[in-house]
């Protein structure tokens, strides 16, 4: 039974670096520091921290019968979805409406909208005989699902994968299962998380949301910077003639730490298992990997564990942490990193890790500090989460045939 590769035939991104993939790529290559501060979005917090804030994501068109409210989450997700309207409509035309599915990923769903509604005292009791309310619908993980799928003309299966910060790479695996099983010919995998007060307070309470911007793999790292954003990829079974993949999704590995609800296993066993399974499913050896896009949150616990695990499997391979550019977009983080890696492969250039100097002397692999040309065929992307939930993916450079 062969699960991989699947063709990645379209991709989109939106985050603090820009509202379109092109804008995001340009700023990422340039190493632009696009962080804002938390008081620009949530005034009145008892702390002021940098955030990866999206600047004026596009408003939704008014000529479509949207069901849900235009929440902050909606605008974050819509910013990527709108970029893929034409490619998805083409896929629907190629495969048929019911043969295209939609798997979405998020960690916080519509939490920001709920915070706002509660803070305004605008909650109304659910009417007798009703089983839900607009607040509940706009709060839930699937809040934007029907609207996005309907807007893009998708008629297949639709659901949400929500495993905190690994959600979007896990959603990618769910999409592969749908294709491999024959239930779908193409799957749009989307993800999105918006900034909200709960995560700002929450990571601050854990002592890993510093006043200064995140510095992954630096000796001076003090924690993460939260961001918001969305990322989408269109996966297709062996593409039809005339459809050229951007890259191949070659393998995905999954594991659990079985260690702690919010801290990674310091031995890195879970991360190692996830990376090794990704290689095995891709049919590749460690030496085939040319670059690693790390989870790289900038917390001492993650970076120490992850850098040691990467060194064990991929000694000497250059490593990038793009959360230094985008902030940690939580459920959208894995796919954001993967789509940035698509551009790395296309340009044959590793993206920079901002503020990583002075590098922690215990980090053995080279950390890419500025955009650096490199010949690359296969890139491994890591995404780890609360609950010890690990996922790693391998993408491969597009060529005439599947790897």
């Amino acid at each position, binding site marked *: 039974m062969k699960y991989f590769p699947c063709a990645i035939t379209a991709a989109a991104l939106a985050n603090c670096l820009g509202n379109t993939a092109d804008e995001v790529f340009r700023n990422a290559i340039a190493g632009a520091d696009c962080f804002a501060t938390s008081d620009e979005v949530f005034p009145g917090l008892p702390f002021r921290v940098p955030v990866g804030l999206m600047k004026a994501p596009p408003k939704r068109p008014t000529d479509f019968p949207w069901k849900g409210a235009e929440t902050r989450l909606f605008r974050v997700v819509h910013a990527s979805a709108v970029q893929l309207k034409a490619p998805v409509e083409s896929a629907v035309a190629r495969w048929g409406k019911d043969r295209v599915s939609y798997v979405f990923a998020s960690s916080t769903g519509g939490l920001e909208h709920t915070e706002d509604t509660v803070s305004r005292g605008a909650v109304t009791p659910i009417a007798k005989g009703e089983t839900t309310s607009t607040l509940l619908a706009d709060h839930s993980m699937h809040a934007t699902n029907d609207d996005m799928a309907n807007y893009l003309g998708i008629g297949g299966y639709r659901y949400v994968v929500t495993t905190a910060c690994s959600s979007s790479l896990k959603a990618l695996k769910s999409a592969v299962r749908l294709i491999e099983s024959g239930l779908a010919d193409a799957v749009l995998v989307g993800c999105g998380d918006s900034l909200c007060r709960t995560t700002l307070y929450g990571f601050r309470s854990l002592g890993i949301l510093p006043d200064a911007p995140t510095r992954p793999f630096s000796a001076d790292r003090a924690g993460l910077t939260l961001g918001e954003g969305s990322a989408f990829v269109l996966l297709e079974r062996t593409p039809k003639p005339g459809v050229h993949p951007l890259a191949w999704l070659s393998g995905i590995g999954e594991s659990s730490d*079985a260690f702690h609800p919010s801290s990674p296993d310091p031995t890195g066993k879970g991360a190692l298992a996830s990376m090794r399974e990704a290689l095995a499913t891709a049919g590749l050896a460690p030496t085939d990997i040319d670059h690693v896009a790390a989870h790289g949150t900038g917390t001492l616990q993650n970076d120490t564990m992850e850098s040691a695990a990467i060194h064990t499997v991929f000694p000497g391979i250059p490593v990038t942490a793009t959360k230094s550019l985008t902030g940690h977009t939580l459920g959208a983080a894995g796919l954001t990193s993967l789509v940035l890696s698509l551009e790395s492969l296309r340009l044959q250039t590793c993206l920079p890790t901002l503020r990583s100097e002075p590098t922690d002397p215990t980090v053995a692999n080279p950390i890419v500090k500025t955009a650096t040309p490199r010949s690359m065929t296969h890139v491994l992307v890591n995404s780890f989460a609360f609950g010890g939930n690990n996922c790693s993916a391998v993408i491969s450079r597009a060529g005439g045939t599947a790897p």
Partner: protein
Amino acid sequence: MTDAHALPPMAVLGFGFFSTQHASPEDTVRDIRCEAQKPKFGLLVARARRFTSLVTQMHVEVCGQALSSAPKDASPHTIFASHHGELHIAADLISDLLTLKSVSSARFALSVHNAPSGLVSIATGNTHGTTTIAAGDDSFAAGLLEAFLIARERRGLVLLSYADEPIPALFGGPISDVGTGFALLLSPATTAPLQGLGTIALQEHTGEADPRLPFQGTADLAAALAAPRPATVQVGQVRPGHAMRVVFSPT
């Protein structure tokens, strides 16, 4: 293959069920009430039980029940499903940050939708992959579909757990005072010795699923498993216009 009909049936090796207001799945189906009860969730050690929500406790409880039928040293891939997830913790965190301007780090760490999945993996030492699915009122149906797909891929045991708790007042609730959990321990029917309770298969039919409270499908299925008796149970829809049913055939 065109739809879930063609996914191979699965052997049911065990199941777990819990309702806050009912003593059995059959009582849940008939809404025969008992004194309100709490899950024992004995899988978790004392330290890990602190700060857990009712929805997590129900997940852990039904997973423990289902795993009691598992082969020795079984380490299934796990799938957790819930519409609302940690809604009460979210409500508490929002209240605290608006009034106290701070939140509990321990509560925050357990606020994610996949908190039960992490706690069960820790409690059982299970290092296999685990996922968490949400699809509104169709969360159980979507979780079941994912369980079938993972079992097909991995050719091994899977544990599916579904739970939802009553809607808290901060969200305008409650709608119902019933919280329920349901778990299934499944194995590909082609590889497992058919010594379990029977097999389940998925069906999809054109047409919208009938609107029902989400836990009703799980209670219907649990009642059939407990009897055991053949049953066809509607569990929701994972794609528009296609109602999903589970067909249970006892051994």
